[in-house]
């Protein structure tokens, strides 16, 4: 919630964006002489005037899923996040980087403003939307608005402050879960104040920048899997829930369910948890007890009964499959709860993409999705799994790509919706002396050679990050 005091006035920008959307939408339906359409155009002009201040030109840009006005990012406010995201998506669909709007709009006839809105709408689907729009505007002698190209250079780095905050939040999350676990292990009854604060921060961070937040879920800890797994499950579950429109307050609850879903593992000996080779029946029984034990530990946290009740069911169900197979097997035959089904998907995805002591080779994210899809309708809720794949993309963030150029690259932004198979990625450069990888340039696999029209790079295959001993997040943030 912290924000700079010298921020641009959010309210004016908010009004401007709203009026922009009203205008582009009405211009789709109505002709130039329609009163409503003209009114919308007029509102847009008025809101532009309010935003000009003394600068004579208004510069709107998108980068890193953020909207920049006069080169400054807007202060984060929960209420306007959805609006900003709509604007970002609107421009991204047209492969535009933004607009410059000049004061000439004051003298411009409203019909012309509407016509420009229509052209902007129509830019979507054009071969080169920026070129097309620029020439169309020129042809119509519209000079008060200048489209800006989509700039790759703007997109390679989230703001440093955001990166640091994201990593710190992850670290807080790990520390928080560990803190609760340690207290439970010493028979104390921990409160959930810290965890709640953290869950709320996670929700805010996710709303502010979903891709940065999701990038955190690629963090792995080979030596102490349970804590990173808990945090990753929370992150993935929250992202899926947000993707399908779950309200904010419920995201906080889901986050806590994710963070605490494996609390019961503290009662299982590490020798069993990390055992290489086949588990005995007795050991397997012990493992199966962990979801029950998680619920037991949640029930003993120091929080109101209502609060605890809201967190008990999904952890209980997280190893139950959609068809109610899995464990624990009980007389209860109720369908698995909504959050239980979400948690199951995130839990499996993180588990099979994480190398473990007893199973050093994990699946790469893309392969994991294919594997999971085999269980749709049986192991997983088919609609939610579909939504998960839709959200995460077939080449999820953190996937290590091997390219036909011989380069290795980590996916940092999936190519949805235009180029799902051609994401943006950061090239991994190898230090030949140490053998360690460091961050190279950011590329888009959708980029083509301008003369031949062929793609500059193609994907040959994928690798799991553990093969290279890298944390993808180091290259993504």
């Amino acid at each position, binding site marked *: 919630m912290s924000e700079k005091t010298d921020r641009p006035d959010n309210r004016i920008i908010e009004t401007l964006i709203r009026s922009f959307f009203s205008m582009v939408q009405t211009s789709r339906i109505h002709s130039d002489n329609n009163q409503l359409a003209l009114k919308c155009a007029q509102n847009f002009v008025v809101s532009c005037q309010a935003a000009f201040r003394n600068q004579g030109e208004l510069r709107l840009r998108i980068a890193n899923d953020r909207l920049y006005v006069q080169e400054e990012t807007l202060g984060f406010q929960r209420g306007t996040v959805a609006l900003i995201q709509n604007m970002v998506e609107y421009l991204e669909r047209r492969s535009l980087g933004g607009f410059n709007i000049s004061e000439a709009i004051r003298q411009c006839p409203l019909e012309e403003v509407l016509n420009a809105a229509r052209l902007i709408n129509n830019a979507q689907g054009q071969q080169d939307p920026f070129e097309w729009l620029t020439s169309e505007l020129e042809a119509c002698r519209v000079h008060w608005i200048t489209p800006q190209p989509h700039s790759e250079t703007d997109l390679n780095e989230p703001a440093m402050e955001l990166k640091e905050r994201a990593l710190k939040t992850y670290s807080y999350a790990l520390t928080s879960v560990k803190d609760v676990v340690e207290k439970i292990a010493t028979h104390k009854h*921990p409160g959930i104040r*810290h965890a709640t604060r953290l869950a709320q921060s996670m929700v805010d961070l996710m709303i502010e920048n979903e891709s940065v937040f999701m990038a955190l879920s690629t963090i792995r800890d080979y030596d102490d899997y349970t804590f990173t797994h808990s945090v990753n499950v929370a992150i993935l579950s929250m992202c899926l829930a947000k993707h399908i429109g779950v309200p904010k307050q419920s995201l906080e609850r889901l986050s806590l369910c994710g963070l605490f879903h494996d609390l019961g593992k503290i009662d299982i000996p590490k020798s069993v948890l990390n055992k290489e080779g086949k588990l005995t029946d007795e050991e397997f029984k012990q493992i199966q007890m962990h979801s029950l034990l998680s619920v037991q530990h949640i029930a003993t946290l120091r929080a109101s009964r209502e609060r605890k009740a809201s967190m008990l069911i999904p952890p209980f169900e997280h190893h139950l499959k959609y068809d109610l197979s899995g464990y624990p097997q009980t007389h209860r035959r109720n369908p698995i709860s909504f959050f239980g089904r979400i948690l199951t998907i995130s839990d499996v995805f993180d588990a099979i993409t994480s190398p473990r002591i007893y199973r050093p080779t994990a699946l790469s994210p893309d392969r994991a999705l294919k594997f999971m899809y085999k269980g749709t309708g049986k192991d997983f809720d088919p609609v939610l799994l579909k939504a998960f794949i839709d959200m995460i993309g077939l080449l999820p963030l953190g996937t290590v790509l091997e390219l036909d150029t011989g380069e290795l690259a980590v996916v940092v932004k999936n190519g949805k919706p235009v180029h799902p198979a051609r994401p943006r990625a950061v090239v991994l450069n190898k230090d030949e002396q140490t053998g360690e990888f460091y961050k190279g340039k950011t590329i888009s696999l959708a980029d083509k050679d301008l003369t031949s029209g062929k793609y500059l790079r193609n994907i040959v*295959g994928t690798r799991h990050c553990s093969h290279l001993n890298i944390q993808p997040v180091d290259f993504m943030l």
Partner: protein
Amino acid sequence: MNAFAMLAKRTDESTQTARSVKQIINSFLIVFKNYALYPENHAICKTSLEKAKPPLYLFFQNNFHFRIDVQKNALIFDSQIVYEGGETEENLAFIFFRDGIEWLEFQRGLTEDEIDRFFKVLYRYRILREEAEGDLVTALWAEDFSHIRYGVKEVFWNADNLIDLGELRAADPGQVAQNASEAGLIQMQPPEFITEWAEAFRLTPEDHEAIKRMIIEDETLDRAQDVLDILGIILMNLEDSKDFEEILDYLKEEFFDTLQLGDLEFTLKLLKNLHFTHQKLRDNKPWTIPLFKRLFSDLCRESTLAALQHVWPTIGPGHVEKQKLVFDILTLLPSRAIYTLLPMMLESHPLHIHDLMMDIAVHLARRNSNPLKQFLTDSNEAVVIKSLKILSMLNQPENNAIFLDMTRHDSENIRKQALTHLLAREGDFLDVCISMVDDSSDAVRWLALKHLGQTRNSRAEKLLTTHLENTDAREENRSHILDCYRTLGQCGDDECIGFLKKTLFPRSWVQKLGIGSTIHQEGALHALTALNPDKAGPILSKASRSFIPSVRAACKKALAGGK
């Protein structure tokens, strides 16, 4: 406007703003202070809260937002300290600081409801408990105010206790070397395939509808039953008594909360589940028996059943279903619930509630009347009387001894109630009654005599005759002696005629002269008037002609029906 006038105007505005800010802060402090002293709904709190609103609205007439920065013990407005206090939870600035709030901003458009909710948050979290569920920041976040913003610094974690992400290893280095070969490469599907797949995974309108339904369902779902089921399953599986106890504690809270909320059906279900689990585990896990025993005992405690105070007012005379649910819930508790229930019965309740409580108490006492019996030695007369009433409704002959015992209680009311209940039961209580005709209480004596005089009964006749023979004709006993004779008239038959005749016509000269015997003579005449006229009539006639003045006078009185 010249420079001086502009300066003067600016100075005026800033003075006005400073005054306005002071008013806002003062009114905030008053509300905060009152919240520390009185319950949230107290009239004083409400009044001070109402008074805190106008200064803010006045401020918003000229300003877009009211922002205060927080320092450890002080509130800052526009770089000026506007409030300062000690490092205690009575200091508004300190509690903001304690939870990491760096600044607060109230914006124009702030609604009264938002102000109310803001202070509710302050009220709830002004004192921070150890291992709390939340704090000011979590509560402000949950409220999601449209016109209140705040900045927060994380206060829990510092660099020392944070896990360093740089230390985490993504993989086992030994394995890395092994896997870094071609074997680690997974051949990629052609891009067209991925594009097709991506299309296949795009959510359809039907999927969106299904998801919308899931979300609505989840938002409106009552999870209570599921939670109950799951906790039941966990209890069945636990092997550790401490863990077991912790779940029982959770369920105890659940019982209290749901009862308080008036969710009677669920409370009943919860209790039935507990009994079910208790029975199931009895043989396999005998160590659970004392734990359940303690749980059920806790459920009977005043602190738990206090929840009923919220339930009673919601049950109307016609709410038969609800009454049955309450009955079923409370009668599933051990009989010791009477310890809590009985004092509750002494409070003022509508008749139908009192009757309901009585039914419950009787049911519980029928199972085990020992808890009820313990109340018989209570110093509170009303408690003892209520216990006697419940005991009387048990229809257990073995309780007669208790009533008999209680007829010797110091309290007149208790003796009366004990005797009333005793006499309402089946059995011969004439001896008890004769022993009580001398009771210091008019009411008790009246009850005893009424019982003795209920029917013609030779044993009662004999007992009364003997009693009267041994009763001194003292003036202070006059009323009592006359009542006994009247009762004798009601229960007596031929047997007492001789005694009455002897009383009426004494042989000794002393008696004939009427010294000390007039009360008995008068009483005997009262008895005779109530007896068989064939046998009593001649005696009465003789008495009316007696040469002894006192006999004549008594006869006159008795026939007149006077005393």
